C-alpha cells in the first residue's frame, strides 16, 4: 500500500487530495459518453441521471427518442425509460432523490429513483409561451428549489418543488437580452437571484425589488459570464470574460481574491469544492483556486462531470468516479511528513508496536504522555475522515493502543466511530453505491440515510443498520418494514392472499406498523381486494374506517366502526352513507345495525325529525311512529291548535292500531274524545279546559257546579267510582260546601271510606267538619285520623276504646310537655288497660 499522502497536493498552506471512489460499472462505460449527454448527479453520493443532449448533437431525422437513464454512483443502471415528451432543458435531483425533468415549455416531471412517475407541475404561462432558456436548481430553506429564465428574460422561482408555488422575481430595467449569467442565492427565509447584465450585478427578490451592486475589480471586466454559489450558499465565484475570477462571500461584501486565468474561454463547469476552493473545468483540465490565489491544476483525459458536495467535490468520468476534497486538518496532522502532532506520534507508536514489535513504541508514547487523550481523539477522528478501510483500521488500532495507557477515557467516542464506520463502509460498498463521507452523513443525518436505503429497496441493509445501531423500532425497523410492505403490494403478479400473508408474517404486530397505510398503497395500486385483506390486520379502527369508506366498502366500514365503539367513527360512516346511498337502501342498512340506528336516531331527534319518522316507517315500527305523533300533538296542544292536535292524534291512533297496541289505541281515542269535549266546553262555558287530564276536567266542572256535564264525562270515560268520589269531595270542600258534602256522604255507601272526608275537611281548614266524619271511620283507624286533625283527647279515647296500648303511646308522644292533663289521663287509661289485661288473663 502506498503512503496515505501519495495523492495529496499542497495548495498554499493546506492540502487537497483526489482519490478514487469507484471504477465505474461496465454498463456505465458503454453508455456514458458524457459529451453527448445532459447529466445530473445527486449530492451525498446519490444517483446519476443521463439523457441525450439534443442541443449538442444534431437530431437525426426519425431518430430514436432519447432515453433517460438512471445509474447509481457506481454506474449500475437502476432504471431507464424513453422520453416521449418535449425537449428536455434540464435534469436535476431533489433532496429526496427524485429526478426532476424540466421540459422547454416549463412542465416539470418528478420521477422516483426507480423511474416511476410521481407528479407533474408547470412553471407558469410565461414559460409555456416563451419557452425556458435556462434553468437552475438550488438547495433552498424549505427543500429543493427551481429557478427558470424564460424566453422573455423573466425569472421565476419555486422554493420547494414538493409544494410548487411560483414566484416571479423582480425585473431588471431595460433587459433586452439574456443576462450574462445568473444564479440563486438562498438564505434562511428567502431566495434571491443574483444576475449579471454585462458587468453590472443585480440582486433580485420576489417582492418586486432589486438591488444594484457594483464590484470593484483590480482589472476592469466587460461582463461576468459564469457564476457559482458554494454548497452552503456562503461563498460565490464569478468568472469574467477577461478570464478573471472574483472569489468572495455570497453577499459580495468580502472579496477573497481575484485570479487571472488568462483563459477567455468560458469554463464548461464551475463548481465549489466544499467551501474551500472553486474548481473550473475546461477541456482536459481542472483548475482549483484557493482563497489566497493559490491554485492547483489537474489533468483529465476524458469528459467529466463535477458534483459539489458539502465537504468536497466528486468527479464523475466515464471510467472512474473520484473525490476531490481538502485533506481534513486532523488527517493532515497525523500523516503530514514530519508532523509532531500527538496523533501522529501515537500513530507511529502503534506502528512500531504492532508491525515492528519495537521498543520505540514506548519512546513515542513517552513523548506525548500528557497529550495522550488528544492523540487518541485525533486518531479516532482521522479514521472517520478516511475512505480506505485499511487506513481506518490502522488509525483505530492506534487509538485503541493509546487508550491502553489511559485509565479514565470514556469509550463512547471510540465505539461510536467504529459503529459509524461500519455503517459507512456498508453503504459505500459498490453493491449499494452511496459514497458518502462521515461529515456528509453527519450533515444528512442517519434517518435520511435510512430513507435513502429504503428508496433503493435495500430493506435488509436498512433493517440491519437500525438493529445494529439499536434505533427505536418505530423510527427504524417498523418504518422500513412498512415501506417494504408498501413496495410488496405493488407486485401485481403475486396473488392477494399470498402478499397479505407474506406481509403479515414479516410484520406481525410490530409496534408502529400502520397496516392502513400499506392498505392505502395497495388501493392506490388498484388492488382493492388486497387492501381489504390488509386492513383486517389493522388494530386501530380509526385507521381502518376512512380507507374502507374511500374504497366504497361502506358496509364493512360501518361494522368496523361499530366494533370499535367509537361513535364518532360510526357517525362519519353513517353520514357519508346517507349522501351516497338511496334513502331506502340507507335506511335498510341502518336497520341491520342497531347501534348505528340508535345513534342516528339520537341525531335525528334533534336535527331531523322527519328522517326519524322515515326510519320508523322503514322498520314498520308503528308504535314509535305513533309516539312521534303524540309528541307532535302535544306541541300543537301547547300552541292551542286543537284541530291539528286532534289530527295528529288520529294518525297516532291509526298507527297504534297497526302496531297492535290496543291499550294505546283506546287511550288515544279517548283523548280525541276528551279534546273534543274540552273544545266544545271552552266554546260554551268560556272557561279553559283544554289539555286538562280527565281528573282535572271533572274537578273543574264540579267546582263550577256543572254536575250534569261532570256526570256525562264520568260515564263517557268510565271514571271509576272511587276516583269520582274523591273528585267530588275535593270539589265540595274546596267550595266550602259542607252541607252538600255531608249530603253526599250519606247519598250511598262510600266506596272510599270516610278517611278521605276527614282529610279534605282538614285540608280546607274545617276541623269541626273533619271531626264529624271520624266516627264513621273504622275503629282501628280513628286514632290516626284524630291525631291527623290534632284532636288528642278524642284520639286517646279512641285508642282506649280499641284497647290499643301502642296507639295510646302514640298519642302520649304527641302530647308533649304542655298537655300534662291529658298525659295523666292517658297514664290512667294505660294502667286500666293493663289491669283489664291482667283480669282477662286471670
Amino acid at each position, binding site marked *: 500500500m502506498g503512503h496515505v499522502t501519495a495523492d495529496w497536493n499542497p495548495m498554499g498552506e493546506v492540502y487537497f487530495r483526489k482519490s478514487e471512489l469507484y471504477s465505474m460499472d461496465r454498463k456505465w462505460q458503454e453508455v456514458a459518453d458524457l459529451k453527448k449527454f445532459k447529466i445530473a448527479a445527486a449530492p451525498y453520493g446519490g444517483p446519476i441521471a443521463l439523457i441525450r443532449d439534443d442541443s449538442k448533437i444534431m437530431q437525426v431525422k426519425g431518430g430514436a427518442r432519447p432515453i433517460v437513464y438512471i445509474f447509481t454512483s457506481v454506474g449500475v443502471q437502476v432504471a431507464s425509460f424513453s422520453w416521449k415528451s418535449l425537449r428536455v432543458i434540464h435534469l436535476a435531483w431533489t433532496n429526496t432523490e427524485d429526478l426532476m425533468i424540466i421540459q422547454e415549455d416549463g412542465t416539470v416531471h418528478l420521477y422516483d429513483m426507480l423511474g416511476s412517475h410521481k407528479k407533474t407541475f408547470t412553471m407558469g404561462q410565461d414559460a409555456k409561451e416563451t419557452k425556458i432558456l435556462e434553468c437552475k436548481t438550488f438547495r433552498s430553506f424549505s427543500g429543493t428549489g427551481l429557478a427558470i429564465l424564460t424566453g422573455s428574460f423573466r425569472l421565476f422561482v419555486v422554493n420547494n418543488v414538493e409544494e410548487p408555488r411560483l414566484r416571479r422575481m423582480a425585473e431588471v430595467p431595460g433587459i433586452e437580452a439574456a443576462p450574462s449569467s445568473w444564479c440563486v442565492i438562498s438564505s434562511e427565509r428567502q431566495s434571491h437571484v443574483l444576475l449579471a447584465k454585462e458587468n453590472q450585478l443585480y440582486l433580485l427578490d420576489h417582492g418586486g425589488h432589486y438591488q444594484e451592486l457594483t464590484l470593484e475589480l483590480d482589472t476592469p471586466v466587460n461582463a461576468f459570464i459564469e457564476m457559482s454559489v458554494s454548497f452552503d450558499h456562503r461563498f460565490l465565484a464569478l468568472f469574467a470574460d477577461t478570464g478573471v475570477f472574483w472569489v468572495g462571500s455570497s453577499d459580495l461584501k468580502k472579496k477573497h481574491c481575484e485570479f487571472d486565468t488568462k483563459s477567455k474561454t468560458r469554463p464548461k463547469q464551475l463548481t465549489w469544492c466544499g467551501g474551500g476552493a472553486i474548481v473550473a473545468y475546461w477541456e482536459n483540465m481542472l483548475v482549483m483556486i484557493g482563497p489566497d490565489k493559490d491554485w492547483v491544476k489537474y489533468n483529465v483525459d476524458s469528459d467529466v462531470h463535477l458534483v459539489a458536495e458539502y465537504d468536497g467535490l466528486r468527479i464523475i468520468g466515464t471510467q472512474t468516479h473520484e473525490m476531490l476534497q481538502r485533506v481534513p486538518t486532523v488527517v493532515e496532522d497525523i500523516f503530514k511528513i514530519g508532523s509532531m502532532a500527538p496523533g501522529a506520534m501515537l500513530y507511529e507508536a502503534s506502528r512500531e508496536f504492532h508491525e515492528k514489535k519495537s521498543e520505540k513504541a514506548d519512546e513515542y508514547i513517552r513523548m506525548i504522555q500528557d497529550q495522550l487523550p488528544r492523540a487518541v481523539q485525533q486518531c479516532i477522528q482521522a479514521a472517520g475522515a478516511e475512505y480506505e478501510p485499511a487506513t481506518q483500521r490502522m488509525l483505530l488500532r492506534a487509538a485503541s493502543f493509546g487508550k491502553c495507557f489511559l485509565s479514565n477515557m470514556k469509550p463512547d467516542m471510540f465505539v461510536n466511530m467504529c459503529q459509524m464506520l461500519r455503517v459507512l463502509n456498508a453503504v459505500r460498498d459498490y453493491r449499494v453505491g452511496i459514497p458518502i463521507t462521515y461529515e456528509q452523513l453527519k450533515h444528512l443525518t442517519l434517518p435520511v440515510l435510512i430513507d435513502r436505503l429504503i428508496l433503493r429497496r435495500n430493506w435488509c441493509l436498512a433493517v440491519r443498520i437500525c438493529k445494529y445501531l439499536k434505533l427505536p423500532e418505530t423510527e427504524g425497523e417498523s418504518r422500513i418494514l412498512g415501506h417494504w410492505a408498501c413496495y410488496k403490494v405493488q407486485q401485481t403478479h403475486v396473488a392477494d392472499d399470498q402478499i397479505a400473508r407474506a406481509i403479515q408474517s414479516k410484520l406481525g404486530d410490530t*409496534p408502529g406498523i400502520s397496516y392502513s397505510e400499506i392498505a392505502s398503497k395497495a388501493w392506490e395500486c388498484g388492488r382493492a381486494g388486497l387492501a381489504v385483506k390488509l386492513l383486517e390486520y389493522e*388494530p*386501530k379502527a380509526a385507521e381502518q374506517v376512512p380507507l374502507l369508506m374511500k374504497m366504497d366498502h361502506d358496509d364493512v366500514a360501518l361494522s368496523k366502526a361499530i366494533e*370499535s*365503539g*367509537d*361513535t*364518532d367513527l360510526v*357517525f*362519519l360512516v353513517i*353520514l357519508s352513507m346517507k349522501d351516497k346511498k338511496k334513502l331506502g337502501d340507507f335506511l335498510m342498512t341502518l336497520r341491520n345495525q*342497531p*347501534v348505528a340506528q*340508535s*345513534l342516528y*336516531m*339520537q*341525531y335525528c*331527534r*334533534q*336535527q331531523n325529525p322527519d328522517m326519524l319518522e322515515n326510519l320508523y316507517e322503514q*322498520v*314498520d*315500527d*308503528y*308504535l*314509535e311512529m305513533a*309516539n312521534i305523533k*303524540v*309528541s*307532535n*300533538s*302535544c*306541541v300543537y*296542544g*301547547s300552541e292551542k291548535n286543537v284541530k291539528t292536535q286532534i289530527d295528529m292524534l288520529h294518525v297516532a291512533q291509526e298507527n297504534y292500531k297497526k*302496531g*297492535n297496541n290496543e*291499550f*294505546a289505541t283506546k*287511550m*288515544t281515542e*279517548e*283523548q280525541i274524545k*276528551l279534546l273534543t269535549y274540552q273544545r266544545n266546553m271552552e266554546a260554551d262555558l268560556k272557561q279553559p279546559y283544554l*289539555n*286538562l*287530564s*280527565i*281528573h*282535572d276536567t271533572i274537578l273543574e266542572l264540579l267546582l263550577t257546579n256543572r254536575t250534569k256535564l261532570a256526570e256525562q264525562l264520568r260515564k263517557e*270515560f268510565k*271514571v*271509576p267510582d*272511587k*276516583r269520582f268520589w*274523591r273528585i267530588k269531595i275535593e270539589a265540595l270542600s274546596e267550595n266550602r260546601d259542607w252541607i252538600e258534602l255531608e249530603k253526599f256522604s250519606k247519598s250511598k255507601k262510600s266506596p*272510599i271510606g270516610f278517611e*278521605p272526608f276527614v*282529610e279534605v275537611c282538614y285540608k280546607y281548614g274545617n276541623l269541626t267538619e273533619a271531626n264529624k266524619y271520624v266516627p264513621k271511620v273504622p275503629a282501628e283507624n280513628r286514632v290516626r285520623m284524630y291525631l291527623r286533625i290534632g284532636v288528642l283527647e278524642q284520639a286517646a279515647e279512641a285508642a282506649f276504646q280499641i284497647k290499643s296500648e301502642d296507639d295510646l303511646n302514640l298519642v302520649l308522644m304527641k302530647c308533649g310537655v304542655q298537655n300534662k292533663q291529658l298525659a295523666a289521663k292517658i297514664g290512667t287509661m294505660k294502667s286500666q288497660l293493663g289491669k283489664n289485661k291482667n283480669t282477662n288473663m286471670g
Partner: protein
Amino acid sequence: MAAISSEGDLDFNQLKVLARDELIRTLESMPDSKDLVIEPKLMKILDRIAGAQLLRNHGASKIFKLELNSPKTDSGQRMYICRPTAENMKVIADHIKSDKQGGKKTSYTVALIPKKMYICEVIMEEEGVYGDVTFEECKLGLIPLDNDILSLELPEFFKSFYLHGDQSWISPIVNSLINLQVIFHKIPNISSQGRCAKMVLEMTKTIENLQGGVLGDPDHQIGHLFLIDREVDMVTPLCTQTTYEGLVDETFGINCGYCEFGKDVTGTDKNIKLLLNYEDDVFEEIRNRHITNVFSFLKAQAQHVQSGYMKGKNITQIGQMKDFVSNELKDLKQQSKSLTIHIGASEKILQQTTNEPDSKEHLQTEHAILEGIGYKDSFSFIEEKLDRQASASKTLRLMCLLSLTSNGLPSKDFKTLQSHFLQSYGYEHLLTLNNLRLCGLFTEQQSTEVSKLSMSDVQKLADKALKRTAFRAICKKWNLIPKDNVQLQNPSDMSYVFSGVYTPLICKLIEQTLMKSPSSTLEEVVKLLPGDNCTFTRTMSAKGKGSGAAKSSSKVVLVYFLGGCTFAEIAALRLLGAMKGYKFMFATTSIMNGNTLIDSMIDNGKGKS
C-alpha cells in the same frame, strides 16, 4: 379486621389539579379577554374545579348561562363551554346567526366537555356557521366530589344509553378509566357486570393493547375494580333511602356535592348553599347514619357546642381568652352553623314523613312490595295514590317497584294502572309510560302477545326479558331481604340503608365477589343478572418484586357505576369496607335517586327530550 391505614387512601387531589389545568388550557386557547357562556348544568362542575376568580385570571370577563337567546354583550371574543350535544350546538348556531344579523363581529370558540363529537361539527356545518367556530376539547373526566367519590356528572347517561341505545358516552367513560389507571397504576383485578360494563371493558382492553400495556403494575394503588351497570339492579334506586345523606338528596337534591337549603331549613330569610362532603365534620359524622339515629347525635353535638361557648364565658384571664378566640371560637362557629342547617334539614325530613298523609303507608307499601307480600294491598294503595293525584314521580316509583319485583304486572293490572295514571296526570304521559316500558322499569308480564308485536319490539323486549330476572330467586339465594330485625343504630348489615328491609343487590354482588363465596353460588345468581359477568386478573409485569397480595393497596376497591349510583349504595359499601377491612372508592356517571331516575323518564311531549 385491621383498619386500612391512611396510605390506602387515593389522593383525588391529583385529579382535581389535572382538571383545573385542563380548564386553564382550554380558557387560554382563546387568548385575551372573552365572555364565557356556560351550559347551566356545568356551572356547578366548574365551581368544583375552579372559582370564578380563576376564570377571571384566564381572561373571562363576563359569564353567562347558555340560553336560547344570545347574550347581550359587545365583547369581540366569546367562548362557549358545554356538553357536545346536538341541542347545545343548535342553540349556539342560533346565537351566531342572530349576532351576524345584528352585524356583530365576534369570534367564537366552542369548548366541549369532555370531548368533541363529530356530530357537533356536522350540525354546525348544516347550520352554516362551521367556519365561524373554533372547536376546542376540554377533557374533564371524573370530578372528585368527595374524598372517596368521583363522578362524570353525566346524569343524562342513563337515559341515552338504556332508553335510546346511544353509545356516544362510552368512550368518555373508557377514557376516564384509562386516565385513572395512569394516575393510580394498572388495576390488577377487574370484575364487570352488565352490557355497558362489558363494552367499556372491551374498549379499554383494546386501547391498552394498542398502547402495549396490558400487564399489571406492582405499584398499583387500587387492588380491584368493579364495573357495574345500573341496569343490574333497578330496584335499589326506586326504594326510599333511609340514610341521612340519601334522604337529603331525595328531599333537597344534592347537585355536584352542593345542596341548597331553603329558608325553612336555615331558619334565616335566605337560602344557603352548602358543600356536603368530608370537610363538614358534622355531616361526615351523620351522613351514613340511619335517619332515626341522626337527631340524637345532633342534639349531643349541640350541647357540646353550647358548653364550648359557656367555657368562653367563664374565662377570666386575657391570655386564655385570646387562645379561646383564636382557636376554639372559629371551630365552634363553624360547627354551630353546620349544626343549625343539619338540624333544620333532619327536622324537615322527619316532618315530611309525618305531614304527608300517606308517607308512612307509602313506606310500608314499599317494604311489603320488596318482601313480596300483600300484592293486592299494594296495588290498591297505588290505585288510591293515583286517584288522589299524589306526586307522580313517587307513585311511579312504587309502580315500577311493583313491576320489577313481580317480573312485570299481569296484563289487566298493567292496563288498569296505566289508564288510572293517564286519567290523573294527562294523556301525554303515554310517552312516559312507554319510556318506562322500554327501560324495563314498568312492564307487562309476557304472555302470548308476542306474535302481535312488531319485529323491533320483540327484539327490544327480548333484551329486556333477559334482564327482568327472577328478582325473588336472587333475594332468596343471597338473603337480600333479612328475616331478622336489623340493627339500625349500630348497623352490621348493609340492609340498614333501607331500614333493614333490602340489601342493595350490587353491594351484595361486590361482597360476594370479594369474599370469594363458593363460585357455584355466585354463578347461580350471576346467571340471573342482566348482561355478562366477566372477571379477570392481570398477569403482573416482571418489574418490582413485592407480592401484590401483601400490599395494603390490594384492599382498595374501586366501584364504577355505569348509569348512576345512590348514596344508599355508597353508605352500604362504606359499612362493608369498615367491617371487612376494605377501602371502597366510588366512581359513577352521576349520583342518582329514585326521583331523578323517574323524572328523567317523564316525557309529556312538551319539552324536547
